[in-house]
């Protein structure tokens, strides 16, 4: 068994006839034509289908922002949470029912600004779930203000001379918080993006993927062409993601836009496994209330 990855036996029900299109809802996305979020979502759906999940056992949680609409566009259980607070909802759902495949999605603003606190604590708790951040380096839904990952000199309507502060390095934040799976992908590179998200889903613990997901409307700097020209794919480099020091060097290298799994702790064991949580609490007799109404009364 490859440590750090769920064993075959531990995998949830394997559905052989599920296609990624089964994860598409009947709602037409309102993202701008060309938005990177289309490709990001496409890869998420493919990764879920490729790992034997189906919409019946998948829970997608989103925050606020353009990315936040994803739960509407995917056919699965979903919750559109409040700004920056998608992760705790996902953690709660996973701990209540460890058999669920939980995928949390958000943007760079949602995850690294409004929800930055939740981000680092979710990373260190290491619950078995996947966190996808659609990083377009701008606040798109509110029509173009600097985000935590915007460049220092990125001119926007509210930062006419740039934010004048260095961008957050989310990969470094995750590493410092004790992350066990830290990766980065590019929404336009369908195959690699899917592979990387798939590895995050298969990881036994918190799978974090920062996805370069260009905003075609409000960011004319971090464009498809920019990423195509600058991305360094770790699959083509001599990079061992299980070697912590090498991973740290790559993550702290602010000059490169990497694609691939930067770090994976091959000995990772998910929080709920360590805590012996394996069943849906709603069906465990001594944990579930006989009558949900009584429970509401008890805590209300």
């Amino acid at each position, binding site marked *: 068994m490859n440590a750090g990855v769920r064993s075959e036996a531990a995998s949830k029900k394997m559905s052989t006839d599920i296609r990624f299109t089964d994860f598409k809802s009947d709602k037409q996305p309102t993202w701008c*034509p060309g938005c990177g979020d289309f*490709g990001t979502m*496409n890869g998420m759906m493919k990764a879920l289908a490729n790992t034997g999940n189906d919409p019946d056992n998948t829970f997608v949680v989103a925050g606020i922002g353009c990315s936040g609409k994803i739960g509407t566009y995917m056919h699965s259980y979903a919750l559109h949470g409040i700004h920056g607070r998608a992760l705790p909802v996902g953690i709660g759902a996973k701990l209540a029912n460890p058999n669920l495949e939980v995928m949390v999605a958000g943007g760079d603003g949602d995850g690294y600004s409004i929800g930055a606190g939740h981000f680092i604590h979710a990373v260190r708790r290491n619950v078995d779930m996947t966190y996808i951040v659609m990083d377009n380096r701008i606040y798109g839904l509110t029509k173009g203000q600097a985000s935590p990952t915007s460049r220092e000199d990125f001119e926007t309507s509210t930062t006419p001379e740039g934010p004048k502060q260095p961008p957050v390095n989310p990969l470094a934040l995750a590493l410092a918080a004790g992350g066990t799976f830290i990766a980065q992908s590019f929404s336009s590179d*369908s195959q690699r993006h899917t592979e990387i998200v798939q590895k995050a889903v298969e990881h036994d613990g918190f799978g974090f993927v920062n996805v370069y997901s260009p905003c075609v409307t409000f960011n004319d700097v971090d464009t498809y062409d920019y990423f195509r020209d600058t991305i360094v794919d770790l699959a083509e480099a001599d990079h061992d993601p299980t070697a912590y020091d090498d991973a740290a060097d790559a993550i702290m290298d602010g000059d490169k836009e990497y694609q691939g799994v930067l770090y994976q702790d091959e000995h990772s064991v998910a929080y709920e496994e360590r805590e012996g949580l394996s069943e849906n609490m709603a069906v465990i007799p001594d944990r579930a209330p006989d009558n949900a109404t009584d429970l509401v009364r008890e805590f209300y």
Partner: protein
Amino acid sequence: MAIDPNFEANRDVAEQHEGHRVWGPVDEPEQLGIHGTHVAVDFDICIADGACLEDCPVDVFEWTDTPGHPESDIKADPINETQCIDCMLCVDVCPVDAIDVDPGRAGRL
């Protein structure tokens, strides 16, 4: 004139080309039909402007030679239509409305 979004009902598959369907009628070199199903390009409308090739985030289109066609000698062929992520950018940028994208159409076939 724009591409007929109901070509599925109004046309028949005339042939296969590079792994995708060609919806007739086809009478080369003047009449070439609609290439693709999920991503459909009406070759008889396409003027080879190139905006779709330039902008598609996942490189669905490639040039194919169509010498003798009255509109243009090359066309944007949706060779990689299975890669389509339904972002609709090609539909948006096409200056002559030659492209229609419908994932449901692909699913029905």
